[in-house]
Structures are given as structure tokens and as C-alpha cells.
């Protein structure tokens, strides 16, 4: 019974950096130890890519080049819209099971809760992006420009990974339940499918074209394609959308976490 006396009180609360890394470490441990998250994400990604490439691909006419070269860059750019639902669900689960309350009752800086999760989930998104890019090459994709252009395009995809991590965190924070978080994250599917990611935007009926043209995903995937071809077209718009999404989602996440 006297064991308790050996616990000394901490001299000071943890600093922001240490606390963020600790929060991130737990998210990563959960991800890596839950095959449903780390392995199934890649399996799902492979299945979708397979379907687009070999099932629908033959019926889609995407300009002059081959469909695989049209599809893979945008598929890699948007993969986080499919895997990101897991982030929203995890955030909602933490709230439902009291884990978030525990974090909020501890003396760590509250910004570390968001920062730690963003770090960890940006890393898991990076893993999805890299794995999907590798699958793309396996399914026949080849770079049309230089390797450097390809790396620039990959870097832009990784930036999107960070942006959408925060967007999905916000969804998880606003969802009333875990199931609602799952449902809410389907909104991302709408944006992904009604963009130029898998089918050229011009192939849609007229009433749908303004949405396809002016929503963020279209310039974001166009910029990735352009970078691979060695062009900077759409890059400014894509970066502006990324900055805007971050500028809204990051403060909303920090403020909303306090009331989680």
C-alpha cells in the first residue's frame, strides 16, 4: 500500500512539443496495431484502383493519352479523401469513449491535442499516398516528365494529406456520434467523384459542370497532373485552396476540441 508514496508530483506540465509527440505516438500505435486501419486502407486502395483501371477504364475517354496516366496522379492526389474517413471516425470514437475528456483534464497544452493528432494522421496519410503511388506504377503508370517533376507532384499530394487530415478531424469533432462521423466523411466522396479526378470534367451534364469546375478537388488534381507534365498550371489555385482549407480547419479544430 505504501507504493503510492513513490509517485512524485511532476515539477511542471509537459511542454507543447513533448505533449504533441506523446499524443501522436498513441495515434500511430493504434494505427499500426490495428490491421483494419493500416493494412485494409492499402487493400481498399488497390481494389479501387484495379476497378478504375481495368473495369471502368476501358469505357472512359480521357483525351489523347492512356487512361492509366490520366487516372493514377489524381487517384494518388485524392486517396486521402477515401482513407480520411478513418480519421473522422477515430476522433469521434475518442470523444465517445471519454479519451478526449481525459486528455482535456490533463495539464498538457490543449493545442498539442490537435497538433499531435495532425502529425500522426498526416503520417498515416503519407503512408496511404506512397503505397498508392507504388501501386500506380505497378498497374502501368509511367511518368511523362522528369523524376523531379514526379517528386514535386508527390510533394503536393503529401501537402493535401496534411490539409485533409485537419478537415477530417473537424468532421470527427462535429459529428454527433461515431456513425455520424462515418456518414459525414462520405461528403468527401461527392467532391472526389464530381471532380476531374477520374473522368474529365467536361463529360458531365451542363448543370453539374459549375460544381465540378469550381470545387477545390478539380484544381487540386489538375495541378498534380500538370506538375507531372512539367507545367505549373492550376498550381496557384490548388495552393490557395489548400491554404484556405487549412486556415479554416486548423483554428476550428483547436477551438472545437476545447468543447469536445
Amino acid at each position, binding site marked *: 500500500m505504501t507504493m503510492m508514496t513513490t509517485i512524485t508530483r511532476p515539477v511542471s506540465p509537459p511542454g507543447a512539443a513533448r505533449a504533441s509527440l506523446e499524443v501522436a505516438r*498513441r495515434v500511430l500505435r493504434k494505427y499500426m*496495431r490495428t490491421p483494419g486501419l493500416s493494412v485494409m486502407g492499402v487493400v481498399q486502395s488497390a481494389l479501387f484502383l484495379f476497378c478504375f483501371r481495368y473495369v471502368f477504364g476501358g469505357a472512359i475517354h480521357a483525351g489523347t493519352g492512356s487512361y492509366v496516366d490520366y487516372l493514377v496522379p489524381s487517384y494518388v492526389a485524392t486517396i486521402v479523401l477515401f482513407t480520411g474517413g478513418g480519421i473522422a471516425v477515430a476522433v469521434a470514437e475518442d470523444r465517445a469513449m471519454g479519451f478526449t475528456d481525459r486528455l482535456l483534464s490533463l495539464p498538457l497544452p490543449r493545442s498539442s491535442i490537435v497538433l499531435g493528432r495532425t502529425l500522426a494522421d498526416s503520417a498515416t496519410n503519407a503512408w496511404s499516398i506512397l503505397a498508392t503511388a507504388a501501386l500506380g506504377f505497378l498497374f502501368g503508370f509511367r511518368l511523362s516528365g522528369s523524376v523531379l517533376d514526379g517528386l514535386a507532384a508527390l510533394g503536393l499530394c503529401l501537402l493535401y494529406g496534411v490539409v485533409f487530415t485537419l478537415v477530417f478531424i473537424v468532421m470527427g469533432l462535429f459529428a454527433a456520434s461515431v456513425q455520424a462521423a462515418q456518414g459525414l466523411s462520405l461528403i468527401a466522396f461527392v467532391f472526389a467523384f464530381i471532380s476531374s479526378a477520374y473522368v474529365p470534367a467536361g463529360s458531365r451534364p451542363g448543370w453539374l459542370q459549375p460544381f465540378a469546375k469550381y470545387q477545390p478537388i478539380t484544381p487540386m488534381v489538375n495541378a498534380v497532373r500538370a506538375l507531372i507534365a512539367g507545367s505549373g498550371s492550376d498550381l496557384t489555385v490548388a495552393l490557395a485552396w489548400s491554404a484556405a482549407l487549412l486556415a479554416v480547419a486548423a483554428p476550428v479544430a483547436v477551438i472545437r476540441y476545447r468543447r469536445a
Partner: protein
Amino acid sequence: MSAASGGAPLLEARGLTVRFGKVTALDGLDLVAPSGQVLAILGPNGAGKTTFVRTVATLLRPASGELRVRGSDVARDPVSVRRDIGLAGQSAAVEPAMTGRENLEMTARLFGQPPRAARRAAAAVIEQLDLGEVADRRCGTYSGGQRRRLDLGASLVGAPRLLLLDEPTTGLDPAGRREVWEAVRGLRALGTDVLLTTHYLDEADELADHVVVIDHGRCIAAGTLGQLKASVGHDVIEVTVSDPARLEQAGQILRSVTCRPAGLDPGGRRASVPAAGGAGQLAAVIRGLDESAIGVDEIGLRRPTLDEAFLALTGDHSDIPAGAGPSYSGSSR
């Protein structure tokens, strides 16, 4: 730095009001609780117990009024409060994909423990709460009681001065409840203050030194267990009649002597009433029963139970007279 000093009360609430939109969960709550105690917050569902604990834990901000925890104001100095408290909620807030030890070490580091101290704190809690056998297994495999004990342990690794337990045994089987009770008693013996909410009155009876009853967001009674029981209207006269058909009549006699409506329990053939006049009234009741020739199996004067105190105070049960407790000024029925 922590403003907590030896002289400050454990909790001090003045006109504490917490709202969720239009709903007022705490409505001008006043409360002073001394240090060195296990304090139990009792109240019917929806009374504001959990809201109160969450406000103490700095998870909710008061709309008005103030709340000090060991002298630190929850709104102005929440970090000092967070350094002083450990929270274990209604659900077991542990990461199922991590082992018990990993969970404890993580929480210790988030309290601010350096790595070596975090490992020591985790080991000490594992020993204290008897989790040695399962400490290196993932929590996803734990039983309900084990998981709740681990959650309790996680709130201890920062050596908090005040432990907050929100319905710590809800949903546990009797063995699991006993495990948690033992752990709480051990902590009190070591000098940790404990604030717990419960809707099990036996739990308060087992653990608490000091009890606060809240209803409709206000404190309606506070005191030691003995004081609370006494506040219901002194002792209770209880009669068990031989013939259930005469129970109603026995109740009338109790009423005529004490001027209070009697509580009737037809199944147990029992009638009871608070008796401010004590033994003198008991004698009058016996005479009355004798005159009406009502056969009696058992009759006596006893201390009220915590259940009676609670029901009288919260007015949840019309059979039991609303008590004239000294600190009670709410609505009786």
C-alpha cells in the same frame, strides 16, 4: 504555479451556473467542502452531478458564479486545477490497442512526468491496483473491472491531490464494484482527496465521509452521512402489522400522532413515519394501536436509512414525507 495552499477548502462553489444552450444544468450551486475527505455527490439522474464533476475537471466553463478547487479558480487558472486533479469518468478512457503499462506511462508523461518518473509511476500504480498480471497485455482484452481499475490508475500517475470519479462503478458486477471500492479506500488512507458521484446510495454509505445532495442544479443538503440521515426528520417509527388489511388503519394512527403522512409498504405489511417526538410519540402510537386492537408483529424507533434521506430530500417518492431538513429549501410535494 499551483495556488493550492493547505488552508484552502477542497471545493468552493459560489452561485455556480452552467448552461447548455437553453438548459441550465447547474443553477446557482453553493457548496464548500473541506479537504481530507471522500466527498460523494448524490442526486437523481439529470440533477447535475456529472456537469458538476466536468466543471471541476475544467471540461466545462461556468456561465456565471465561481468554482475554486483547492483555491484555484477553474475559469481563470485552469492549468493549476488540471495539475491538481485526476479524472476517471463513466467510461474507461484507455487506449485498447495499447497495454495497461503503455497507457499508464503515456498518461504520466502527459501529466508532465519525465520518462523515468513516468515508468516508476506506472509501476507503482500497477502494484497498488493489483494489475501486475495483465499490465503487459493490450487493454482490449481486459474485463470490465480490470479496465475500470486501469482507468482509475491512469488518473493517479500524476499524483493528483484530488481524484474525480464520475460513477466509478456503474455497469460493473459486484466483484468489480468491490475492487474499485477497495482501491478508493486505499487512496483515502494515503491522503488523496476523492470526489465521487454515484446513484448507488450504498456506495456513498461505504465510501463517503461527506455527502452533498444536488437536485435541479442546486445543492439541497450537505453534511456527514449521520447529519444527512438525521436531517430527514429525526428517527422513524416503523410498525409491522400482523393483518395486511389493517395496514391502512395503522398508517392513520401514525399520522394522527406525528401529524405527518405515513409511508406504507403493503408487501412488507410495514408503515413508517418520521417521528420528531421520539420515544414519547412511539408510546402514543402503541396506545393507539392497542385501542384499535391492531395486531403488531414488530414496532420500533430507528434511524432513517440513506435511501429515506435521499428520497425525502429529492421529493421523488410521494409515500415518504418531504423532510424538514435544516438545509432544505427546495420544492417538496
